[in-house]
Protein backbone atom coordinates (compact mmCIF):
# COMPACT_ATOMS: atom_id res chain seq x y z
CA UNK A 1 0.00 0.00 0.00
CA UNK A 2 1.49 3.35 -0.96
CA UNK A 3 2.28 5.78 1.80
CA UNK A 4 -0.12 8.64 1.96
CA UNK A 5 1.49 11.99 1.31
CA UNK A 6 1.16 14.57 4.01
CA UNK A 7 -1.12 17.36 2.96
CA UNK A 8 -0.30 21.02 3.39
CA UNK A 9 2.94 22.61 4.32
CA UNK A 10 4.87 21.67 7.39
CA UNK A 11 5.03 24.25 10.14
CA UNK A 12 7.98 26.50 9.65
CA UNK A 13 9.17 28.88 12.31
CA UNK A 14 11.29 30.58 9.69
CA UNK A 15 8.33 31.19 7.40
CA UNK A 16 6.23 32.46 10.28
CA UNK A 17 9.03 34.76 11.39
CA UNK A 18 9.45 36.01 7.83
CA UNK A 19 5.75 36.76 7.52
CA UNK A 20 5.56 38.67 10.76
CA UNK A 21 8.84 40.57 10.68
CA UNK A 22 9.74 41.05 7.02
CA UNK A 23 8.37 44.61 6.92
CA UNK A 24 8.46 46.28 10.29
CA UNK A 25 9.64 49.60 11.47
CA UNK A 26 10.79 51.22 14.65
CA UNK A 27 10.92 54.95 15.05
CA UNK A 28 11.14 57.71 17.57
CA UNK A 29 10.92 61.50 17.72
CA UNK A 30 12.87 63.11 20.54
CA UNK A 31 10.58 66.15 20.60
CA UNK A 32 7.33 64.23 21.02
CA UNK A 33 7.02 63.14 24.61
CA UNK A 34 4.17 61.34 26.25
CA UNK A 35 2.51 64.11 28.26
CA UNK A 36 1.67 61.69 31.05
CA UNK A 37 5.23 60.76 32.03
CA UNK A 38 7.47 63.04 29.94
CA UNK A 39 9.23 60.03 28.40
CA UNK A 40 10.32 59.41 24.83
CA UNK A 41 8.78 56.28 23.36
CA UNK A 42 9.87 54.06 20.50
CA UNK A 43 7.02 52.97 18.28
CA UNK A 44 7.19 49.49 16.72
CA UNK A 45 4.89 48.64 13.84
CA UNK A 46 4.44 45.76 11.45
CA UNK A 47 2.92 45.98 8.01
CA UNK A 48 -0.13 43.78 7.51
CA UNK A 49 -1.36 43.37 3.96
CA UNK A 50 -4.98 43.82 4.96
CA UNK A 51 -4.50 46.32 7.76
CA UNK A 52 -1.58 48.59 6.91
CA UNK A 53 0.83 49.57 9.67
CA UNK A 54 -0.25 48.15 13.03
CA UNK A 55 1.39 48.73 16.42
CA UNK A 56 3.33 45.77 17.80
CA UNK A 57 2.96 44.63 21.38
CA UNK A 58 5.90 44.36 23.73
CA UNK A 59 6.52 40.65 23.06
CA UNK A 60 6.61 41.04 19.27
CA UNK A 61 8.75 44.17 19.49
CA UNK A 62 11.17 42.22 21.67
CA UNK A 63 11.31 39.42 19.08
CA UNK A 64 11.90 42.04 16.39
CA UNK A 65 14.99 43.48 18.03
CA UNK A 66 16.56 40.41 19.59
CA UNK A 67 17.10 38.40 16.39
CA UNK A 68 19.38 39.27 13.45
CA UNK A 69 17.48 40.93 10.62
CA UNK A 70 18.12 43.07 7.57
CA UNK A 71 17.70 46.70 8.56
CA UNK A 72 17.68 50.05 6.81
CA UNK A 73 18.44 52.71 9.40
CA UNK A 74 18.07 56.45 9.20
CA UNK A 75 18.55 59.38 11.55
CA UNK A 76 16.60 62.43 10.50
CA UNK A 77 16.41 66.02 11.67
CA UNK A 78 13.36 68.18 10.96
CA UNK A 79 14.41 71.77 10.32
CA UNK A 80 12.60 75.06 9.91
CA UNK A 81 14.06 78.39 8.79
CA UNK A 82 12.75 81.70 10.21
CA UNK A 83 10.76 82.23 6.99
CA UNK A 84 8.86 78.97 7.60
CA UNK A 85 10.68 76.88 5.01
CA UNK A 86 11.00 73.29 6.22
CA UNK A 87 13.28 70.45 5.22
CA UNK A 88 14.68 67.17 6.51
CA UNK A 89 18.35 66.38 6.90
CA UNK A 90 19.20 62.69 7.24
CA UNK A 91 21.88 60.04 7.31
CA UNK A 92 21.19 56.42 6.42
CA UNK A 93 22.95 53.11 6.35
CA UNK A 94 22.21 49.43 5.81
CA UNK A 95 22.65 46.81 8.46
CA UNK A 96 22.22 43.34 6.94
CA UNK A 97 21.66 40.29 9.14
CA UNK A 98 22.39 42.00 12.43
CA UNK A 99 20.63 42.66 15.68
CA UNK A 100 19.68 46.30 15.81
CA UNK A 101 20.64 46.54 19.46
CA UNK A 102 24.27 45.78 18.56
CA UNK A 103 24.87 49.16 16.97
CA UNK A 104 23.84 51.67 19.60
CA UNK A 105 27.13 53.58 19.15
CA UNK A 106 26.30 54.17 15.49
CA UNK A 107 23.24 56.14 16.56
CA UNK A 108 25.37 58.66 18.45
CA UNK A 109 27.69 59.07 15.45
CA UNK A 110 24.84 59.47 12.97
CA UNK A 111 23.06 61.88 15.25
CA UNK A 112 26.15 64.06 15.47
CA UNK A 113 26.65 63.89 11.69
CA UNK A 114 23.07 64.97 10.99
CA UNK A 115 23.28 67.88 13.40
CA UNK A 116 26.70 69.02 12.17
CA UNK A 117 25.11 69.84 8.81
CA UNK A 118 22.52 72.11 10.42
CA UNK A 119 22.21 75.15 12.62
CA UNK A 120 20.92 73.54 15.78
CA UNK A 121 18.54 76.43 16.45
CA UNK A 122 16.70 75.58 13.21
CA UNK A 123 16.09 71.97 14.23
CA UNK A 124 12.67 71.29 15.73
CA UNK A 125 12.90 67.53 16.11
CA UNK A 126 15.23 64.63 15.54
CA UNK A 127 14.71 60.91 15.59
CA UNK A 128 15.70 57.60 14.11
CA UNK A 129 13.77 55.16 12.02
CA UNK A 130 14.68 51.57 11.17
CA UNK A 131 12.86 49.29 8.75
CA UNK A 132 13.33 45.59 8.09
CA UNK A 133 13.40 43.86 4.75
CA UNK A 134 13.65 40.22 3.73
CA UNK A 135 14.75 38.53 0.53
CA UNK A 136 15.72 41.24 -1.91
CA UNK A 137 16.04 44.78 -0.61
CA UNK A 138 13.10 46.85 -1.93
CA UNK A 139 13.96 49.47 -4.53
CA UNK A 140 13.25 52.97 -3.28
CA UNK A 141 15.11 55.58 -5.31
CA UNK A 142 13.94 58.52 -3.22
CA UNK A 143 14.50 56.64 0.03
CA UNK A 144 10.87 57.40 0.75
CA UNK A 145 10.80 54.82 3.55
CA UNK A 146 12.68 57.12 5.90
CA UNK A 147 10.10 59.91 5.46
CA UNK A 148 7.52 57.93 7.45
CA UNK A 149 5.88 60.15 10.08
CA UNK A 150 7.63 63.29 8.86
CA UNK A 151 5.34 66.30 8.34
CA UNK A 152 3.36 66.15 5.07
CA UNK A 153 5.02 69.28 3.64
CA UNK A 154 8.42 67.61 3.90
CA UNK A 155 7.23 64.32 2.35
CA UNK A 156 5.76 66.34 -0.52
CA UNK A 157 9.28 67.47 -1.45
CA UNK A 158 10.03 63.91 -2.64
CA UNK A 159 6.56 62.48 -3.40
CA UNK A 160 3.61 63.97 -5.28
CA UNK A 161 1.08 61.23 -4.54
CA UNK A 162 -1.40 62.76 -2.08
CA UNK A 163 -2.68 59.35 -0.94
CA UNK A 164 0.86 58.23 -0.10
CA UNK A 165 1.57 61.52 1.68
CA UNK A 166 -1.60 61.16 3.77
CA UNK A 167 -0.67 57.59 4.68
CA UNK A 168 2.89 58.47 5.68
CA UNK A 169 2.41 61.87 7.31
CA UNK A 170 3.25 62.40 10.96
CA UNK A 171 3.01 65.29 13.41
CA UNK A 172 3.76 68.77 12.10
CA UNK A 173 5.88 71.65 13.43
CA UNK A 174 4.85 73.44 16.59
CA UNK A 175 6.67 75.84 18.88
CA UNK A 176 6.23 73.46 21.80
CA UNK A 177 7.72 70.59 19.78
CA UNK A 178 10.75 72.72 18.97
CA UNK A 179 11.12 73.89 22.58
CA UNK A 180 10.85 70.31 23.83
CA UNK A 181 13.45 69.08 21.37
CA UNK A 182 15.88 71.92 22.14
CA UNK A 183 15.77 71.05 25.85
CA UNK A 184 15.91 67.34 25.12
CA UNK A 185 18.97 67.90 22.95
CA UNK A 186 20.68 69.86 25.71
CA UNK A 187 20.05 66.97 28.12
CA UNK A 188 21.30 64.46 25.57
CA UNK A 189 24.55 66.38 24.97
CA UNK A 190 25.21 66.74 28.70
CA UNK A 191 24.54 63.05 29.29
CA UNK A 192 26.73 62.07 26.33
CA UNK A 193 29.59 64.25 27.60
CA UNK A 194 29.37 62.54 31.00
CA UNK A 195 29.43 59.09 29.37
CA UNK A 196 32.45 59.93 27.24
CA UNK A 197 34.32 61.42 30.22
CA UNK A 198 33.72 58.35 32.39
Amino acid at each position, binding site marked *: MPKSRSRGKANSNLARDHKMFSTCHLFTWEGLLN*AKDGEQYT*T*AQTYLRMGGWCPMGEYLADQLIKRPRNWMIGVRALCRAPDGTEWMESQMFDLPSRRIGDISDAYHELRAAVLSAQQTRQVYDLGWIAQTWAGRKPEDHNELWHYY*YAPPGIIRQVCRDDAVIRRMAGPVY*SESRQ*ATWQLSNKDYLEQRARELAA
Partner: protein
Amino acid sequence: MSQLAIPQDQDLTDGQIMALVDVHGVAYFHSSGCVVLKNGTWLQPEQWQVHLDKMINECETENGSHDY
Protein backbone atom coordinates in the same frame (compact mmCIF):
# COMPACT_ATOMS: atom_id res chain seq x y z
CA MET B 1 17.89 67.48 34.05
CA SER B 2 16.04 70.29 32.31
CA GLN B 3 12.34 70.80 32.79
CA LEU B 4 11.00 69.63 29.46
CA ALA B 5 8.20 71.57 27.83
CA ILE B 6 5.59 68.85 27.75
CA PRO B 7 2.19 69.66 26.32
CA GLN B 8 -0.28 69.19 29.16
CA ASP B 9 -3.11 67.19 27.71
CA GLN B 10 -4.29 65.29 30.74
CA ASP B 11 -7.00 67.72 31.80
CA LEU B 12 -8.76 67.92 28.47
CA THR B 13 -12.52 67.75 28.54
CA ASP B 14 -14.34 65.17 26.42
CA GLY B 15 -15.36 67.91 24.00
CA GLN B 16 -11.78 69.14 23.68
CA ILE B 17 -10.52 65.62 23.00
CA MET B 18 -13.08 65.07 20.24
CA ALA B 19 -12.31 68.47 18.73
CA LEU B 20 -8.57 67.75 18.76
CA VAL B 21 -9.03 64.44 16.94
CA ASP B 22 -11.46 65.93 14.43
CA VAL B 23 -9.27 68.95 13.66
CA HIS B 24 -5.81 67.39 13.60
CA GLY B 25 -6.38 63.69 12.86
CA VAL B 26 -4.41 60.65 13.99
CA ALA B 27 -0.73 60.36 13.05
CA TYR B 28 -0.04 56.92 14.54
CA PHE B 29 -0.90 54.46 17.28
CA HIS B 30 1.46 53.28 19.98
CA SER B 31 1.23 49.78 21.44
CA SER B 32 0.71 51.29 24.91
CA GLY B 33 -2.75 52.32 23.72
CA CYS B 34 -1.67 55.96 23.35
CA VAL B 35 -2.48 57.77 20.14
CA VAL B 36 -0.32 60.52 18.64
CA LEU B 37 -2.17 63.22 16.73
CA LYS B 38 -0.80 65.17 13.79
CA ASN B 39 -0.20 68.22 15.97
CA GLY B 40 2.03 66.09 18.23
CA THR B 41 -0.48 65.62 21.05
CA TRP B 42 -0.23 62.29 22.88
CA LEU B 43 -3.69 61.08 23.83
CA GLN B 44 -3.73 58.61 26.69
CA PRO B 45 -5.68 55.35 26.23
CA GLU B 46 -8.59 56.62 28.35
CA GLN B 47 -8.70 59.85 26.31
CA TRP B 48 -8.74 57.89 23.04
CA GLN B 49 -11.55 55.79 24.51
CA VAL B 50 -13.66 58.96 24.70
CA HIS B 51 -13.32 59.34 20.94
CA LEU B 52 -14.02 55.63 20.32
CA ASP B 53 -17.16 55.78 22.45
CA LYS B 54 -18.35 58.77 20.44
CA MET B 55 -17.78 56.94 17.15
CA ILE B 56 -19.60 53.86 18.44
CA ASN B 57 -22.52 55.98 19.61
CA GLU B 58 -22.72 57.68 16.23
CA CYS B 59 -22.70 54.32 14.43
CA GLU B 60 -25.45 52.98 16.67
CA THR B 61 -27.51 56.13 16.19
CA GLU B 62 -27.14 55.95 12.41
CA ASN B 63 -27.97 52.23 12.31
CA GLY B 64 -30.93 52.75 14.59
CA SER B 65 -32.47 55.28 12.25
CA HIS B 66 -32.65 52.85 9.33
CA ASP B 67 -35.93 51.25 8.31
CA TYR B 68 -35.52 47.56 7.67
